[in-house]
């Protein structure tokens, strides 16, 4: 293998690929990045066995195609510290990788390519294409509600549901639920439901931008793969069944109020200071035109705030974990928020006024 490439062309994909590679690995080959050189293309692959990222870039010149694995972090640190716009020549000599640039020379150890656990192509059954912005919006609107290391392992991820003309993401940790769906120009029959693990969701969101450029998804029985022009991202799936989220969405709410989102968020953050640090409970008093938010802690300190809302109906008192409410208000991007309640023992539904593409369900707490 022998090729040369500019520092900038190598550094951008390398930084992203090396981000997937974890620092502490039980297996030496996993701290390496796989470099595959073809005639007009250099592909870099990094994996932590849960997610895999392939970054592609264009070399200046290819003298000899081939492949090798070299330590990811060391390669990145070398490239970073070389002067800008420098040209790097990469040669494989006697099982060692030699980097030359100007008057510098680095020799890196390699490991056999056959031992690198990259995922082979051609396992997908369904292929479709979405605008990147749509997928990013769906992920960012719901990812905060994913569970973390829950024994119900199927909650430690995000449900990605694809059916004809509709994409939907759902995540829940058992206390709150986030659902977001958008129409899309896709044709999937029968509908596909897969659970992408937490790490895969967060990595995928980092790779996407808000543009209308397409990202193509390949859905397999064991993997989901996302291609953009420069990157191919692959994640394993969670092997389980996601709970039936539609049954959780409350339908019997009759007390609907609308509040200013930013104001309500500030009010809640302030009162949360004096809530119980462990349970973070706050009490909401719903009255005509006014919402009173109260919190107290074991030291008998108290906070009370009033905020004007659009509401006319009977009074109601209900408790919530304030963290869950703040999370939801943080991801909604309308100016106002609508909250639907029924009684102190039923979950609340939060959404944009009149119902946007996202729905959030928060369970109340008994105070």
């Amino acid at each position, binding site marked *: 293998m022998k090729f040369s490439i500019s520092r900038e062309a190598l550094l951008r994909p390398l930084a992203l690929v090396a981000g997937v590679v974890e620092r502490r690995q039980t297996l030496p080959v996993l701290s390496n990045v796989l470099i595959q050189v073809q005639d007009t293309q250099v592909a870099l692959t990094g994996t932590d066995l849960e997610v895999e990222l392939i970054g592609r870039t264009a070399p200046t010149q290819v003298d000899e195609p081939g492949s090798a694995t070299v330590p990811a972090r060391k390669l990145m640190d070398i490239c970073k510290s070389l002067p800008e716009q420098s040209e790097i020549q990469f040669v494989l000599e006697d099982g060692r990788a030699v980097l030359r640039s100007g008057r510098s020379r680095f020799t890196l150890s390699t490991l056999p390519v*056959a031992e690198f656990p990259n995922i082979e192509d051609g396992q997908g059954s369904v292929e479709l294409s979405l605008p990147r912005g749509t997928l990013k919006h769906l992920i960012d609107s719901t990812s905060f509600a994913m569970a973390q290391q829950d024994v119900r392992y199927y909650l430690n991820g995000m449900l990605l549901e694809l059916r004809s003309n509709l994409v939907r993401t759902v995540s829940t940790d058992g206390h709150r639920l986030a659902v977001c769906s958008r129409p899309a120009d896709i044709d999937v029959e029968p509908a596909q439901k897969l659970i992408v693990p937490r790490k895969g969701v967060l990595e995928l969101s980092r790779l996407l931008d808000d543009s209308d450029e397409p990202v193509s998804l390949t859905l397999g029985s*064991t993997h989901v793969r996302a291609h953009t022009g420069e990157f191919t991202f692959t994640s394993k799936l969670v*092997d389980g069944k996601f709970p039936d989220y539609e049954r959780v969405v409350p339908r019997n709410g009759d007390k609907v109020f609308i509040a200013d989102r930013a104001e309500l968020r500030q009010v809640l953050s302030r009162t949360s200071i004096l809530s119980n640090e462990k349970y973070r409970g706050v009490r909401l008093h719903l009255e005509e035109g006014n919402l009173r938010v109260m919190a107290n802690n074991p030291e008998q300190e108290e906070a009370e705030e009033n905020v004007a809302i659009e509401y006319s109906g009977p009074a109601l008192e209900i408790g919530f974990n304030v963290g869950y409410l703040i999370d939801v208000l943080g991801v909604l991007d309308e100016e106002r928020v609508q909250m639907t309640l029924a009684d102190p023992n039923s979950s609340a539904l939060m959404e944009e006024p009149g119902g946007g593409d996202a729905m959030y369900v928060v369970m109340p707490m008994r105070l």
Partner: protein
Amino acid sequence: MSADTMPAPLPWQTARWRQLVELQDSGRLPHALLLSGPKGVGPQALAEALIARTLCHHPGDLACGHCHSCAMLASGYHPDLKRVSPADKGRQIRIDPIREVNAFVNQTAQQGGHRVIVIEPAEAMNVAAANALLKSLEEPGASTLFVLLAEIPSRLMPTVRSRCQQWRLATPEPQACQAWLAEALGEHQDAAFWLQVAGGLPLLARDLATGEARQLRQTLHELFDALVRGAEPVAEASRLAGQSVEAILWYGIGWLEDLIRLGLSGGTVALRNPDLLPLYRQAVKNARVRDWFRLLDFAREQRRLLASGGNPNPQLVLEAWLVRWSALLRS
């Protein structure tokens, strides 16, 4: 690398292997296999061959040895293979590695094929670990294979046993393994003799006939001889310092069983150690069969204590053991 270097079953396991291959090819292999049988029969070899074939992308009669999966396996690590063994030899398998197994089973295979979990020895799981495994073991997702290896399956919790299909590997016919053993030992060794010493277990026979194990047997033989002549057992015990107590007990139990056979029937055909016959004849004169049985019970109890993770003082165990022997031999 070629197909010859891929793990293969041992010659006397051919019939079992064919059954496994047939089941696997027709998609009827159970998701959890409990391979039981003495170590000397080589259940590991059968398990390794099955694991390699399960993970291989293009399996033939064995794993192909050429595909990406086989290459990774040959390098000593495969992302879809999880091995669980006690952290240090003779100890228990604790709950933490089993929790890792549960996390491993909850996600799909990295290479898109099968996920394989090997627990060896399965009896080493403590109660908490075995209980933690039950849920995954009962209903794993598709294309998952658990392989549990157990020498004494009755030590496993019944709830674990009932979730696995049990395959017993019996002691092979001597004809089936003598050729293999003769090749393993070299030409000038008496394969038939060592197979008899090992009670018909070919791998054990190979180990006994070579290196330190053979030396130990010689030492014990001399020691037995000395005890029969009336040597002081505590002094003799010091000759065995540093040797594995399990191995010494194993020989002792084998010889006791021989003595009982000889004492009860008088026949010499079934003896496992025919070279010791002169010593046996002398010993049989000195004690009653009932006393041999009592000593056998003692040895087995000691062995059970060792296996269950006890950590006795080896010197004391040996001395107690030899004192009892010599008391019987002298009576």
